[in-house]
Every structure is written in structure tokens, then in C-alpha cells.
């Protein structure tokens, strides 16, 4: 997708693939044939730049044909460079400017909570995104309203555009910070679906508090030359790099299928 688009964000998209897989194929109640089903769980992507993995997940789940994936970022495509609500089934919110998705997730969860609905809201944030003040406004608000139907997943990959998050604007001690904001803070290996399933179970069983899963991920996961490198935050691979990446991922897939 990114080779074809000639721009986009590969590192976060690859690093969060396991989280998306867990959510769409293990955790969330949703129906690709009825995308506006009122009682669906909502996935609110706050860090919109990792939308390639959102689009791929939606296509895999059956929201739209996979052929459309190759239109990413092209004129007339519903697969906008950053997601646009209304362009594509399954997109709950327009996003791009960081910090905005989590507030919308808070609003949705508040409606569900007050109206006694059983659906849940999952909001995905980047760790660099947590530099934004709005994120902390939203954390305070969710805690005030005891939104135990809200789960925030932080992509703790420690990279952002200008370097590591430890260098750009340190977040640690993150778990303690979030706990002190009144959240049920859970740390999990974000590239291990079993660990993630367990984390989502822990979130579901915690009453009266919103939950946050700090998902420790490897940016560029599965592609050796991208793993852990902040330079791949917002740079698409060229044709050769793309082929090499797909070859590695294909081999990993074959190994998994053989198990």
C-alpha cells in the first residue's frame, strides 16, 4: 500500500498490527455488513497517521474489497491520507491532528454509560501524541465520569518524528502518571496477541474506572530494517524496500501457518 502511495507512515502501522488484529478479530463486537449498527463497539483512532493498518484491518474484516487498499492517498480514494469519517464504512472519526480522537472517544463512552448501553469504546493513541495537552484533558474527563466502558491503547513504541520519545519529551513514569489520573493502567507486550487478549480481559473486568493499556510495541515490527528506527515514522519504502519487507512478512506468515 505504502509503496504504491509513495508516502505514509509504515513504522507505527506495522508496530500496531497485532493490536488491530486482536481488536477486530478477537475483542470487538462489530458487523462489517452492518457498519452503523448502533450497538457496535467503536474503534476511535486518535493517531490517524497509522491508518494504513486500520484500512488493512477493515478490508480483512470485510468492510470493503481489498483491491481498494491500493488506492491509498490517491485522488478520489475513500482511503484518505488521514482517515475521514463518512468516506469509508467502519471509520468512526476523522483524525490526523493529534489528541482529538481520545476526546471523541470520551464523548461516545459517556453517551453509552449514561444511556446504559453495553457497547464499548476503544481508542488508539500514539505515545508521541501524549505530548498534546488535549490528551490529558480527556484523561481527566474520562476519570471524572468513571468511564469503565472506555479502553485507551497507547502505542508505546518510543519513537516520534524528531527522535525517541525519551529525547523529544519524556513521558516516564507513564504507568504511575496514568494511575494517578484515576485510570486502570495495564502494561502489555503489544506485539503478542495472547498478552493483549489478557490485557483487554483485565480492562473489561475493572469497574468504575477507564482502562489504559500501555502496549509496548516495536515500530516497524516484522521488517528487520525498519524495526526500532524512528526514520521510518513517516517515510514510505521504495519499490525494492517494499518487496524486501513483504518477503520478510510473507515468510513470517508461512511459518505461522505451518504451526
Amino acid at each position, binding site marked *: 500500500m505504502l509503496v504504491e502511495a509513495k508516502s505514509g507512515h509504515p513504522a507505527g502501522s506495522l508496530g500496531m498490527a497485532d493490536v488491530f488484529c486482536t481488536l477486530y478479530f478477537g475483542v470487538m463486537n462489530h458487523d462489517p455488513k452492518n457498519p452503523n449498527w448502533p450497538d457496535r463497539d467503536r474503534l476511535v483512532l486518535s493517531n490517524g497517521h497509522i491508518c494504513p493498518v486500520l484500512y488493512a484491518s477493515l478490508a480483512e474484516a470485510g468492510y470493503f474489497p481489498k483491491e481498494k487498499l491500493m488506492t491509498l492517498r490517491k485522488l478520489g480514494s475513500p482511503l484518505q491520507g488521514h482517515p475521514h469519517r463518512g468516506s469509508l464504512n467502519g471509520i468512526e472519526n476523522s483524525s490526523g491532528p493529534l489528541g482529538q480522537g481520545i476526546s471523541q472517544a470520551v*464523548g461516545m463512552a459517556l453517551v453509552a454509560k449514561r444511556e446504559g448501553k453495553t457497547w464499548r469504546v476503544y481508542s488508539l493513541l500514539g505515545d508521541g501524541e501524549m505530548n498534546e495537552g488535549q490528551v490529558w484533558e480527556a484523561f481527566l474527563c474520562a476519570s471524572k465520569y468513571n468511564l469503565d466502558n472506555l479502553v485507551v491503547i497507547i502505542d508505546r513504541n518510543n519513537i516520534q518524528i524528531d527522535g525517541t520519545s525519551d529525547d523529544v519529551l519524556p513521558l516516564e513514569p507513564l504507568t504511575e502518571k496514568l494511575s494517578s489520573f484515576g485510570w486502570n493502567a495495564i502494561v502489555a507486550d503489544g506485539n503478542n496477541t495472547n498478552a493483549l487478549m489478557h490485557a483487554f480481559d483485565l480492562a473489561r473486568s475493572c469497574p468504575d474506572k477507564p482502562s489504559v493499556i500501555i502496549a509496548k510495541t516495536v515500530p516497524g515490527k516484522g521488517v528487520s530494517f525498519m524495526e526500532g528506527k524512528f526514520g521510518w515514522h513517516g517515510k514510505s519504502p521504495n519499490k525494492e524496500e517494499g518487496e524486501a519487507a513483504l518477503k520478510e512478512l510473507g515468510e513470517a506468515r508461512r511459518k505461522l501457518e505451518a504451526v
Partner: protein
Amino acid sequence: MDMHLVPDLFSAGVVKKANRDGFGKAIVELGEKDSNVWVLTADVSESTRTHWFAEKFSDRFVQVGVAEQNLAGAAAGIAACGKKAFISAFGAFSPGRNFDQIRVSICYNNVDVKVHASHCGLSVGPDGASHQILEDIAMMRALPNMTVLVPCDLEQAKKATLAAAKLKTPVYIRTSRENVAVFTTADTPFEIGKANVYRDGKDIAIFACGLQVYEALKAAEELKKKDIDAAVIDMHTIKPIDSQTIISFAKKCGVLVSAEDHQVDGGLGSAIAEVLAENHPAHLKRIGMKNSFGESGSCSELYKKYGLDAAGIVKSVEEALKMKK
């Protein structure tokens, strides 16, 4: 067309109240009729008159604290669930601080959120320049999907809010704190996008919005004594702008004046200039803030100093008429 203004418009007996009260009353009325109406505020519920709604419908009222970015975002999320959400704060902070959230979370999502800004313009007075938002109309009217309303008094603010609620798209409603004459009545017409001509005139047309409408009416009385026949048009809707009315007065009078408690760049005056330039070039003098911040003082003192009261409008009209010759 009869505009049903209060009789004896300029007498001391005309009731004076802030137009923010009209918004507050309207949302209570809406809340009673429609259980999908939600209201959010950012630690200014009494000042923005959302406390009346909060007292009645606590289960649909949200207090986010001093957090205007989250205010706009949470409202967008609530609206995405099929609700009609009103956010209410001081204009200096919403949209002053949360333009990006209004742009993306509200307008790009195109959700049913109404942005009510109270305490707008110089009229907020003693609080000083930091609190006198004079750029909000410019910001809001540039946004796709947004409708922009600037009511002139309490009655009109109520009607504007009720009319906004009928739309399922974003609307910006601008009010003020100052107690001013309630000179329109329940029978005065209000239609989004259709200017109200309160007074016809052949020499010059004064287009005003918000608190300047009443000042313009007073100015027209003064001008009459000087044998100048001025029309007064209430431009309660800045977007979509009523081009037809602007063009027809440009043809009739040849010279127009705009008056607003806002920067002349980007506000009502600019909107009128755009219509004229593209359709029927005519002279226009814009009254408003000219590339400057405000300062502390009472509303009347500030309106006098910056030429936004009736006397200032009279002076500008006389200058504008010289352009015509």
C-alpha cells in the same frame, strides 16, 4: 415587510438584557422537546447561561472543566452517537483556543455540534483585550460545513438557537454579556441566511450584526435629522451571507457601511466586500476594529472610542457619503 420591532424603540423603558440569555432559554426549550439534546460547558455554566439547562437535565449536561479542546472533541463524540450537542464557553477560548478541534472533530466530521460563544467582542469591557475575542467570525466563517450566526438581542438569540437546532450540521452562535435593548419581538421574522431590513433608505445602507444593529438604528434616526436617508439591515447570518440583499442595496444606494464588534478583516465587512467585488462593485466603509486589540473600559466607553456606537456610525456614514460623490 413588517419587522414587528418593539414600539418606541429608543425610549428609556425598553427592556435591557444580554442576548446570551436568549441562548440559555432556547436550549432549555429544546431540551424539553428533544431528549437527544446535550449541552457541554467548560467551567462557565452560569456565565454562558447553560446552568438553566443543567438544573433541568443533569443527565444530558457535561461539565468538562477549563478544557476547551476536550469540550469540542467530546461534543463531536457525543454527536457521532446521534445526539445534538451544544458547547458553550467564552468566545476568547472557544473558538479562540480550540479552532483545530472545531475544524477537524466538528466540521470535517460534519457532526451536529452547535458552538455557542458568549462574552464576544469589545462589549465584554473591563476584562480587557485578552478576553475580547475580535477574530472569531473570521475563523468560523472560513470553515467548510459551518453556519455563522450573530444575533442582535435576546429575542433573536433565542430564535437563532432554535433555528440552528433544526440543522444537523455545525453552527456557530455568537453572543455577548452586555445588557442591551431587546428591540425585536417574538413576531420579528428570523430565517437563517435572510437578512432583516429594519429600515429602508435610499442614500446609504448600514449593514450591522450583533450589538451594532441597535446602534445603527439609532444612527439612522440621527441621520434623518441631517436629511440623510439611511437603510438599516440586520445581518444576523454571516454565513451563508445574504448576497441578494447586499447587491440590491448596492444598486439602490451605491454606498454601504458595515458595522461589527469584530476586526474589519475577515468579519461581516469582509464578507460584504467579497459579495460586492464579485457581483456589483460599490463603495463600502467598514466599521470595526482595525488591526488592533481592545483594552479595558466599559462597553459604552469602548464603543465610543472605537466608533462602534451610534455617534461613530453617523460619523462613518458621513465619511462614506463623500466617497459616493
